């Protein structure tokens, strides 16, 4: 147990003693390992332990957050004192006796990373490296990162929540650089899961990742620059889902909706997307990178339909957002670590499978871009302006793929682009990413089947 219930009670009582109407402790002990292979050699192995606690109190819709590494009773009380000092309006709220629970964890972790010898992990990196280098003589460099995390958390609050959870993550990221001496191009693959080292049996194939990253890099090295202009764009499944994540997902988080800032504020029940679009944020998918057991506010996770056949039906809401919006929270409160106050965030967010034929989507598009692998992106939720990179793209003319193109990016306005989705394919896939926002960088999945957007601004040269 990270924290005894009596100490927790005492700390919470102190935190709310000056008039807060809610108090919470988030305590964390995390062990992680990073391994970096470059130039064919294991270059750095670093292990780290993250340890600390954050105390949060609310006064209406005002939030006060204090965090520390000193998790002794005295350290936590000092922290509670600092939080309480920010409020001065009474004697504090009632506290509900704790219901001590452990989060339900549906996945089994047969090989906890902390129990696996580091050289076994290193061998996986070597395997990916060999495959990438074997792909082509033009591969000038391969960099591979392995990471694992075992995060033990305890979340308790004045509403009686006292829950412990363990989150185990494993991921490998391969980046290959192809060069002809004058120019460099890169390719990458970064699969991961809410899994232990067994991820390498079930999900992560190092040789495949190495080859795929190398293939992308070499393909892009020989690709001309993407033309600029407004075109129809077909976006492939898997990481292609980053378009929904950026164009729409962030703007459905209470972080912007609760303040009326989002372009989707106040539009519940309206048709905000084309009727072929159903979008879901699901924390319950077994072993997925963005899945959760309980959120970082202690609420059990769930599956949330955001857009149902074009109609906006739900927002993603954390506790504070819930107070502002006067709507129940959705288990969406997440944070990078104790050093961040939680806010509403995505989990595994994807466009659900539709009924359109993938081959016909390209055949019927005349001239445009086929984006096979997407890179990351960003959005300004207030204006809805988004952008993201196309890591591997192909130019389509007369409905046929004619050649690869490099350096493309896609920009637009979220509310506009989700109206312009005119085809949704049948094969929905998930892919892993890190998402950054005001509560830090957290693991999320993006996902979709192949989709087509009837017109989108393609940035190129």
């Amino acid at each position, binding site marked *: 147990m990270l924290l005894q219930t009596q100490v927790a009670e005492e700390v919470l009582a102190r935190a709310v003693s000056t008039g807060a109407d809610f108090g919470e402790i988030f305590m964390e*002990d995390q*062990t992680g390992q*990073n*391994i*970096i292979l470059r130039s064919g*050699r*294991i*270059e*750095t*192995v*670093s*292990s*780290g*332990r*993250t*340890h600390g606690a954050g105390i949060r109190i609310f006064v209406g*819709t*005002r*939030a*006060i*957050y*204090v*965090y*520390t*590494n000193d998790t002794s009773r005295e350290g936590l009380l000092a922290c509670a004192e600092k939080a309480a*000092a920010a409020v001065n309006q009474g004697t504090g709220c009632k506290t509900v006796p704790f219901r001590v629970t452990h989060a339900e964890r549906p996945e089994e972790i047969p090989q906890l990373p902390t129990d696996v010898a*580091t050289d076994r992990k*290193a061998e996986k990196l070597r395997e990916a490296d060999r495959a990438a280098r074997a792909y082509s003589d033009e591969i000038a460099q391969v*960099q591979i990162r392995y990471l694992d995390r075992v995060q033990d958390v305890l979340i308790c609050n004045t509403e009686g929540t006292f829950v412990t959870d363990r989150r185990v993550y494993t991921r490998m990221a391969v980046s290959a*650089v192809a060069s002809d001496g004058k120019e*460099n*191009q*890169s390719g990458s693959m970064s699969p991961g899961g809410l899994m232990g080292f067994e991820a390498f049996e079930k999900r992560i194939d190092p040789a495949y990742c190495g080859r795929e990253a190398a293939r992308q890099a070499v393909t892009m090295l020989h690709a001309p*620059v993407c033309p*600029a202009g*407004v075109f129809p764009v077909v976006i492939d499944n898997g990481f292609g889902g980053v378009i929904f994540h950026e164009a729409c997902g962030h703007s459905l988080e209470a972080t912007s909706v609760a303040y009326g*800032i989002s*372009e989707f504020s106040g539009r519940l029940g309206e048709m905000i997307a084309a009727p072929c679009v159903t979008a879901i944020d699901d924390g319950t998918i077994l072993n997925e990178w963005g899945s959760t057991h309980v959120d970082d506010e202690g609420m059990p996770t769930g599956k949330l339909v955001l857009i149902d056949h074009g109609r906006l039906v739900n927002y993603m809401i954390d506790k504070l957002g819930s107070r502002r919006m006067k709507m129940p929270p959705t288990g969406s409160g997440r944070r990078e670590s104790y*050093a961040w*106050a939680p806010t509403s965030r995505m989990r595994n967010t994807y466009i659900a499978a539709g009924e359109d034929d993938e081959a016909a989507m390209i055949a019927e598009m005349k001239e445009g871009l086929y984006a096979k692998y997407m*890179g*990351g992106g*960003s959005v*300004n939720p*207030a*204006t809805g*302006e*988004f*952008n*993201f*990179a196309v890591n591997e793209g192909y130019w389509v003319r007369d409905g046929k793929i004619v050649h690869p193109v*490099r*350096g493309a*990016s896609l920009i*637009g306005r979220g509310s506009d682009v989700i109206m312009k989705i005119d085809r949704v394919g049948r094969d929905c896939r998930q892919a892993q990413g890190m998402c950054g926002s005001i509560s830090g960088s957290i693991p999320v999945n993006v996902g979709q089947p192949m989709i087509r957007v009837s017109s989108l*601004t*393609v*940035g*190129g*040269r």
Partner: protein
Amino acid sequence: MNVQEFMDRLLRTAGKNGIDPAEIYYTDADSFSANAQDTEIDSYEVSSSCSLSIRGSVNGKMGYASTEAFDEEALAYLIRAVKESAALNEAEEQDEIYAGDESYPEIETEEDDLDSVSAEEKLQMALTAEKASREADPRIKQSEGATIQTSVFHAVMRNTHGLKLENARKLYVAYASPIAKDGDATATGFKMKYGRKLRELDPVRLGREAAADAVSQLHAEPVASGEYRIIIRYDAMQSLLSTFVGIFSAENAQQKMSLLAGREGEEIASRVVSITDDPLRKGGLATSSFDGEGSAAFTKAVVDKGVLKTLLHNRRTAKKQGVKTTGNARRAGGMHVAPTNFYLEPGEKTLEELLRDMGDGLLITDVSGLHAGANPISGDFSLLAKGFVIRGGQQAEPVERITVAGNFYQLLKSIRAVGCDLEFPGSAIGSPSVDAGVMAVSGK
């Protein structure tokens, strides 16, 4: 146990376990942040945190570990992790633990008032800035808040060669992000200030400038796709330089991740481009008398009138290339290379003069999505941008939803003029505005 005791015991225990030499890097930080939104204090954050990393050599191989807990368990964990890490280290060139230089430069520290400003005063400043934004223009209807942050940072480096170095930094950062609306048009504004004397901050001015920024962007539209004459304002250019700064790292060059490898002495940029790395810059965010492995810091020209003078080195990369370290070691897991206060040297013309010289074209004031739309390995970028149409040297209508595309290596060569308005927008990396020549724009 207290941290001092923990560090003493850790260095002793390391030696007993065959980790020799060994080095500790300890940091502690205190921070405060308050955000005003919708005319009230919406969030308030206080923190104190510390962390310790250790590296040590086992049979000539370096191992690394870090912790935020300081108990018996953490001590045993660090020793075990360093040994395990070292055992797997296959790097051809190993980092060394350095006994230190004979002397270190004096850093001129700026006075600060951060300890004397109360939490209440900081809250008032945030509220004042947010209110000033709202009152500046009737079209400011909302805000993403106004924030005042202060932080105190302290670092200690100790090793078994007897080296002990310390560094401390204090800072405030203040910013306002109002939202302007007019009919269907929405635009976000942003203005940031930072420094060491919080009482010298004028929160009303901060709020008003942020409001003016938002309003100026209302009703922005894309321009037609094509090639345009482009001036990149200091803040957008700073974003680009920050994204591509890694090309100046000898570590990246040696790993074939930078096309500047082996090009010292060659012309890699236009004659108007000079770039400096200055760890001694007064008030800089990366100012320090020593680098991540204890080498004395010094100021150096990286690019002088277009010619690449040196890449940035730590002791390992310098040794490999047969040169001296430039004092740019950075700890991050292992030992890497990073710039300190790194900037494009200013020229003589004001932004207005640059615009007048250009005549017709675009002024780019913001680029976004750099983590995705810019590829630090190829130098290619294609970025969502905002700015203004420039007509006859004058700022005309606002522009948004365009991309500006190019290649950073080529951009360095095509810069025609550099402005005098060098700024470090809340960063150790700085730039003035530049006349970037002709670039490809994708719009409508």
